[in-house]
């Protein structure tokens, strides 16, 4: 009898191992800026995460398991961030980590996630270098990277202003400001080699004053001024440029201005190029009639008193990926709760949809996300500029192919590339 019981137990054991018990909750640890200048992104993302988790749990959670999210402040410095990350992943029992906003933090945390063997979604950072220079087992990106973001801006500029001759740049003096100009400049030189760069300015990050740069730009009179500034820096630059009439004489290309539209109010005049780091816009032309989209936008506005900006969309993508991968893994596991390896297996080719177009995870773990570019317009319907002449670019066309280094790939493009890219156009 005893032997029989033992045999039965032994036979049952592999089964119990495969069909892991459902946990009490699915724990997510999310790094986001709650302090510092980048909290203009981090705080909206946190608010969005709270709404999304509430929604998922109200619908019965993921596979019947409620989702629980805790936040780590990226503004506390790299050392605190890594020790908090480690704590949450190890003793905190986080199943999936979402990190990070800052590209520098992504570069620090990606190898750490690999060491800790915890699944990590890079949900917002921009650097394209992560998967071009390394390959990871546990790290995935649920959004695009700087390459398609900047390429979309360059293509939109060339499609809407084919005849411009001169350009100047005013970017923040840190990795993003330098790298984004590198990509944009390479793309411009490849597709329109006769453009002349008449000024390159890299004022320090957090600069309170662009007056001197603006005087200089007024003397230079470039046709186009690019600035990948964001947050307070972008607000200050646009406000000061508008105050002094620079926005009447040059066309501005502002690839991150979607996140500043509401704050800039009437200061951002019509006719300037606005980007959104993906197909992110609170009036997304392909999504604005969906009930889920409308419902989320209404709830977000009610909770925060502000319109949704791109980090909100990136957060939605990360949670959509979480939901999609667990549902896929549960199905593959015959309806039982999956273990980590099964979740990792389900990440391959995963497709999910947040608040924009669907996003697909490529074999190098990079997400393929569409890009929305548009022109600012003051219609009077809102107390701030909205978007018109919207173009949504197919992400697959403008993301560097697997194994290619972005800048080399872009450098090999030519003017014919402009017509090869799939684009959907909307009046507003």
């Amino acid at each position: 009898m005893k032997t029989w019981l033992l045999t039965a137990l032994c036979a049952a054991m592999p089964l119990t191992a495969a069909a892991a018990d459902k946990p009490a909750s699915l724990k997510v640890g999310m790094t986001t800026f709650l302090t510092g200048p980048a909290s203009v992104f981090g705080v909206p993302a946190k608010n969005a995460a709270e709404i999304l988790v509430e929604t998922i749990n109200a619908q019965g959670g993921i596979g019947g398991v409620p989702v629980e999210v805790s936040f780590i402040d990226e503004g506390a410095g790299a050392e605190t961030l890594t020790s908090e990350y480690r704590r949450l992943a190890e003793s905190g029992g986080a199943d999936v980590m979402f990190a990070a906003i800052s590209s520098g933090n992504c570069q620090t945390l990606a190898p750490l996630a690999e060491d800790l063997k915890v699944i990590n979604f890079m949900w917002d950072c921009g650097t394209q270098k992560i998967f071009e220079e390394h390959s990871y087992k546990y790290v995935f990106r649920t959004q695009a990277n700087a390459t398609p973001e900047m390429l979309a801006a360059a293509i939109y500029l060339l499609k809407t202003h084919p005849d411009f001759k001169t350009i100047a740049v005013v970017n923040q003096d840190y990795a993003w400001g330098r790298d984004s100009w590198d990509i944009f400049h390479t793309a411009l030189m490849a597709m329109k080699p006769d453009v002349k760069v008449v000024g390159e300015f890299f004022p320090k990050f957090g600069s309170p004053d662009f007056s001197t740069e603006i005087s200089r730009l007024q003397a230079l009179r470039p046709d186009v001024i690019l600035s990948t500034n964001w947050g307070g820096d972008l607000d200050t630059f646009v406000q000061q440029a508008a105050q002094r009439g620079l926005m009447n004489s040059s066309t501005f290309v502002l690839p991150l201005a979607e996140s500043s539209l509401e704050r800039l109010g009437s200061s951002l005049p019509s006719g300037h190029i606005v980007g959104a780091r993906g197909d992110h816009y609170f009036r997304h032309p392909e999504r604005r009639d969906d009930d889920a989209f409308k419902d989320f936008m209404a709830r977000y506005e009610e909770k925060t008193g502000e319109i949704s900006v791109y980090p909100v969309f990136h957060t939605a993508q990360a949670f959509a990926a979480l939901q999609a991968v667990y549902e896929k893994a549960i199905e593959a596991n015959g309806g039982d709760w999956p273990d980590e390896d099964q979740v990792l297996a389900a990440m391959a080719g995963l497709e999910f949809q947040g608040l924009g177009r669907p996003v697909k995870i490529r074999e190098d773990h990079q997400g393929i996300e569409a890009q929305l570019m548009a022109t600012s317009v003051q219609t009077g319907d809102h107390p701030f500029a909205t978007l018109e002449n919207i173009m949504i670019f197919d992400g697959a066309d403008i993301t560097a192919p697997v194994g290619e280094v972005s800048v080399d790939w872009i450098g090999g493009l030519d003017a014919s590339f402009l017509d090869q890219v799939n684009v959907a156009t909307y009046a507003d």
Partner: protein
Amino acid sequence: MTPTLFLLALFDGIAYAALVFIVALGLTLIFGVMRILNIAHGSLYAIGAYATVSLSGWALALGLAPILAFPLMLVSAVLVGLLLGGPIEWLLLRRIYDKPEVLQLLVTFAVFMILEDVQRLVWGTRPYFEATALQVLGNVTVLGVTYTVYQLILLPAVAAALLLGMRFFLRHTIIGKLILATTEDREAAQSIGIDADKVFLFTFIVGAALAGLGGALASPTTSILPGMGADMIVLSFAVVATAGLGQIEGAALTALMIGLGRSFAVYVWPEAATLVPYAIMVAVLSVRPQGLFGSPSARKI
């Protein structure tokens, strides 16, 4: 560099220097009199800016005339001086004048950290922009380049008025003379009947109000957001240290040097613009460790 560009760089440099000087003036006054390097000065600057934005936003919402933005700047500065400067001196600094410098630095740094969080608590993390005062004055075109009257004329005028006013106040008024006497020798001043406690309290309130005024004057030109105080304290400390701690005229000259250095760098060598203020500081301090105008004995830190 053509003469036109030279003039443009000159205008930009002066406008920038004016704002830096107003903040540095408060810092150097407090140090000159009280021998305390007040790190919290940066927070007082930021709160002056936030208070102006809130007050003028509120006044505009009531439908009051936009020109009222100017008196509201003064109101904000006075509020910062009285409501923050007063209690900081009276409750905290008064207890540590005879303690080591390191402790004094740590205490003002702690106040800075606390006030940074207070700003986040009250105003959140969202950047504010309130440019009514600047729009009221309009623009002026010089050599084909548009400037705001506010930055080109008003800020330098206010800075010059403050410099001359402060000189006059310290040398030709009774209170100013009491302050100078206390600065020279606190014990001797007390022995002839000067209430040094009152002098210190008054000086700190004035210094704090100047920080608040700097923030108030900066507010129409820039985004008001968390962290702006930290940047300003670093820059104004560079000005004050280069000039020699406690040197008011020196601070004006150094602010001008740093402002012009920075603006000429943007025209000639933009890559170095960020570096210029600190390069000037290093160059001056390596030749004259006590600062341009400082005397060696006056140095404390």
